[in-house]
């Protein structure tokens, strides 16, 4: 920090209730809503470039296909704000789908209950290892990724057995809806609203931010570190299982290959949405914009038609890199003004 900046700081502090400097405001807006702005720009571009893009049907299809990633990304947002990472959500998503299809023999209760209980328990276990034994989240959830994938392969006979959804009411939960959108889309919106309230208006949310911002200081300030972390990973596991179950309902079967690598999409969506990968700052509106951005990119590439889905990953990757670079620059601007 140079001398002149410190001086600026002091003036800011001395002035009665001085408003934030303009550079800071702009950069904070960009950090928080950059993804939303780019999303908007892409939608405008897509509408102009492709006739088939702007229609309500296409918009609904983007929303429907994005909703599953969105549910996973909500949990991931909490994890990343708390300064951690959860690599196991892709595997939990798949396991949740297989378990839901299997459990659907016992009706809708079994179809939803089985994946939620198992995936929630695995998330809880990971949280306990991370918070209590102070193991690195990366390692614990990497072990979770591999282990859960193993469990999934074991119960599906290495993917040879595909369980079909037997319960009609459960299948309807993933396929039907109203106003042109399926139930998972509405559920995503509901979960997102609850998540925002949790983050901004509860002690739990404050604790998540505090731990991600400075864990040692948070401990000295009386934040219950272990409880908060365990809850965060529990939520992440639960939401991944729920998303997987809904996906199985949509497809009427527990598909064993879809969802592999989903954890990386979720992390990408969260980071593109402006949440700092180092923790301590971020939010769910950004994450939702990030998820939709990935969905729109994929949709646009599909519109072009002759490009493969591999190309979509290249675009997403480049985009993620740009966002991380922009975040660094923006956070430097904010620190200095």
């Amino acid at each position, binding site marked *: 920090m140079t001398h002149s900046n410190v001086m600026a700081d002091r003036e800011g502090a001395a002035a009665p209730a001085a*408003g934030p400097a303009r550079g800071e405001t702009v950069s904070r807006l960009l950090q928080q809503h950059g993804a939303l702005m780019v999303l908007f720009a892409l939608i405008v571009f897509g509408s102009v470039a492709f006739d088939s893009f702007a229609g309500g049907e296409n918009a609904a299809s983007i929303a429907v296909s994005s909703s599953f990633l969105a549910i996973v990304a909500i949990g991931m947002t909490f994890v990343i704000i708390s300064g951690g990472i959860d690599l196991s959500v892709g595997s939990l998503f798949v396991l949740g789908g297989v378990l839901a299809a299997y459990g659907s023999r016992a009706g809708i209760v079994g179809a939803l209950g089985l994946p939620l209980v198992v995936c929630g328990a695995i998330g809880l276990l990971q949280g306990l290892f991370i918070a209590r034994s102070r193991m690195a989240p990366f390692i614990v959830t990497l072990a979770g990724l591999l282990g859960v994938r193993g469990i999934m392969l074991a119960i599906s006979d290495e993917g040879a057995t595909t369980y079909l959804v037997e319960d009609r009411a459960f299948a309807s939960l993933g396929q039907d809806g109203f106003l042109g959108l399926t139930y998972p889309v509405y559920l995503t919106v509901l979960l997102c609203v609850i998540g925002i309230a949790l983050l901004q208006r*509860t002690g739990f949310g404050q604790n998540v931010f505090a731990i991600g911002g400075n864990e040692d200081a948070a401990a000295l*300030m009386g934040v219950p570190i272990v409880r908060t972390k365990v809850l965060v990973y529990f939520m992440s596991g639960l939401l991944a299982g729920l998303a997987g179950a809904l996906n199985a309902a949509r497809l009427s079967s527990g598909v064993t290959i879809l969802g592999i690598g989903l954890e990386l999409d979720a992390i990408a969506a969260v980071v593109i949405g402006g949440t700092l990968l180092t923790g301590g700052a971020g939010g769910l509106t950004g994450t939702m914009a990030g998820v939709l951005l990935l969905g729109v990119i994929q949709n646009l590439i599909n519109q072009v038609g002759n490009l493969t889905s591999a190309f979509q990953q290249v675009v997403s990757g480049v985009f993620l890199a740009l966002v991380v670079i922009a975040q660094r620059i923006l956070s430097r601007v904010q620190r200095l003004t």
Partner: protein
Amino acid sequence: MTKSTEPVLEATEVSKRFPGVLALDQVSLSLGPGEVHALVGENGAGKSTLVKVLTGVHRPDGGRLRLHGRPVAFGTPLEAQRAGISTIYQEVNLIPLMSVARNLLLGHEPRGRLGGIDLPRLHAQAEHVLAGYGLSVDVRRPLRSLSVGAQQMVALARAVSVDARVVIMDEPTSSLEPREVATLFGVIGELRDRGISTVYVSHRLEELYQICDRVTVLRDGKVAHTGPLAGLDRLRLISLMLGRDLAEVRAVGSAGPARTPDGAAPVPVVETRGLARRHVLRDVSIEVRRGEVVGLGGLLGAGRTETAKAIVGAMPVDAGEVIVAGVPLRRRSTAGAIRAGVSMLPEDRKAEGIVPTLSVRENIALAALPRLARAGVVSDARIDRVVETFMRRLRIKAASPHQRVSELSGGNQQKVLLARWLAMSPKALLLDEPTRGIDVGAKAEVQTLIEELAGAGLGVLLISSDLEELVSASDRILVLRDGAVVAELAGADVTEEQIMAAIAARSGEEPHG
């Protein structure tokens, strides 16, 4: 205001042992209601250990803690906080990315109807609290956008607002502006009036005399003195901290260097001009000539280590330049300084020096590898030659060059580090506490080595809290206080007494001759 004599917080014969060290040896401390108690001592005296015992970070091995007469044992900092002991750390311990208001009231947020956090009330309450500390800022801004002083004030407001009965402040003014220090003292005065006691840890004597009622001096884990501050002479306080008895020093007089540098070259090997860094260094200009040992005296936090770090480019400076053998160092980096011929032996050799899992040989050759290589290929034979030379010259006691360096004694580890830098054939060496934590015999050997090295033409800058060592090894001594050189002692003036007088002098006053 009625002051009962019943102590608020009382530590009785508290001991704390770490592997190899008795950090606290039956230390007792008693804090009356509304009392501002200064806790002073040099590095390693046990101050921070005592603070950590009082705040629940460490559990004492022996002794008792009493709060309001009742025995207490804190398992975690949180328990101590709940019991009414709040701590303000030297580094601000808040969450930089969270807003000022959320930091201030984390865990105590005002609630709305549905049990959610009531943001308008949160902000209003935060503004109200901070106004009481002379701070009017937008409480919705992230904490890190505030100046360090304002952040410190938020930390103080938070510490006091959580129903504190004892506030422990660990060097709270180290990053404050004079105006902010005045505010802080105002707050401490208010605390005193409300009967809240303060433990004040600081090295700034001016501040201690201004604000504190009583003082406890720690030295080598023991209480060296405790009593009222008023009437305690500054010189006496410093001699208590440094552990040098005034009478004894006067009787022995100057040890003085036995060796005088002959034919000192006109151009200094290392020279600094006006080194400055906010809150750390003020206009530090020093010269070290060939074959000369220049000592840096002063209390902990006076800017000795920082000066050395600034010279080798390990700490950025706001102003000033470093000149090595007449050539200014342009790009400031440790690599640049090493290339120019200046190396620093850091104070914390475990954290900043040796690589414990590597062998003696590898540790010595580490920095010199590029010099011992041709086209990127390192010659084993050349390394062996260098390593063998230095092991003999510095009398490093190791079973073989391949022994792991972590198995050596502290003194020999220090010599391995010395060898590492000597292998670079430097022009000057900066030694920060080279004999700390090594046994007496090894200490004498390292001291002899320093003398030999200077005799061989090296310029040496020596930092030592051991006054006896500093006086006996140095040709000249510069005394630092609050980041500025306050005295230069040479020849017959190089005595422990003169150093202490220079440290004790009030700012703006010449040390008495």
